[in-house]
């Protein structure tokens, strides 16, 4: 009975330690500027990945996978060939618990980034996080789009008026003839 109790206690201790170790490795990222203000295909974004172990910076091998926004069958982006594709799949080692990466995001939409970390000091210690973030379209491109629509609508209205006047004139002429 005593042996059984000791065995259970040991198992419980080991499980608690494993859970704490798993919880101990954390990976996160920050960007120099807010993602809400980043223009796709315009601003190079500097991302900093941080790894901490029990709250302190810790070196780890990172595996970063970045997937582009899914295809929207109704409204395309200006760069449809990259929609729904894997943009980035790379590994790197942090220094002082940090790894910096610069990237030019090509299109608007929701990106998915999966970051896996494996501790260098304790290889059995791993963690993986999936981050999603959205980029808005460049404001000047939105304005340009509205200008294009305005021009097309104006041309349509002007053409309609000219054609209607012409048709009325023709019908008047045929009525008087």
């Amino acid at each position: 009975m005593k042996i059984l109790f000791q065995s259970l206690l040991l198992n419980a201790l080991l499980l608690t330690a494993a859970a704490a170790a798993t919880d101990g490795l954390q990976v996160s990222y920050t960007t120099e500027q807010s993602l809400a203000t980043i223009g796709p295909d315009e601003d190079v974004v500097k991302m900093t990945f941080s790894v901490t172990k029990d709250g302190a910076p810790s070196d780890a091998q990172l595996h970063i996978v970045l997937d582009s926004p899914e295809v929207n069958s109704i409204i395309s982006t200006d760069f449809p060939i990259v929609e729904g594709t894997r943009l980035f799949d790379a590994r790197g080692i942090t220094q002082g618990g940090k790894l910096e990466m610069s990237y030019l995001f090509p299109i608007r939409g929701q990106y998915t980034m999966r970051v896996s970390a494996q501790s260098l000091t304790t290889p059995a210690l791993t963690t993986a996080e999936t981050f999603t973030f959205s980029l808005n379209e460049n404001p000047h491109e939105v304005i340009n789009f509205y200008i294009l629509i305005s021009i097309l609508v104006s041309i349509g209205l002007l053409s309609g008026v000219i054609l209607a006047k012409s048709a009325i004139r023709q019908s008047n002429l045929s009525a008087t003839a």
Partner: protein
Amino acid sequence: MNKDHLTTQAKRHAKLTLTLNISALSKAVILLAIVGIVLYTVLFSTYPAVHDFFHELRHSLMMIPCH
């Protein structure tokens, strides 16, 4: 080609245009065809010379698929 010849040509074209009798439907079809061809050429054509010239314009219009 001298100036007088050009003037004569212009007058001839103006006279011809004024005397043309095209129905409103035909005019609308012609207009739609011209607008369609121009828009397709400027925004969607993959012909390299055209594409390269309008490349930046297409990218700056938010939802015109360039490549």
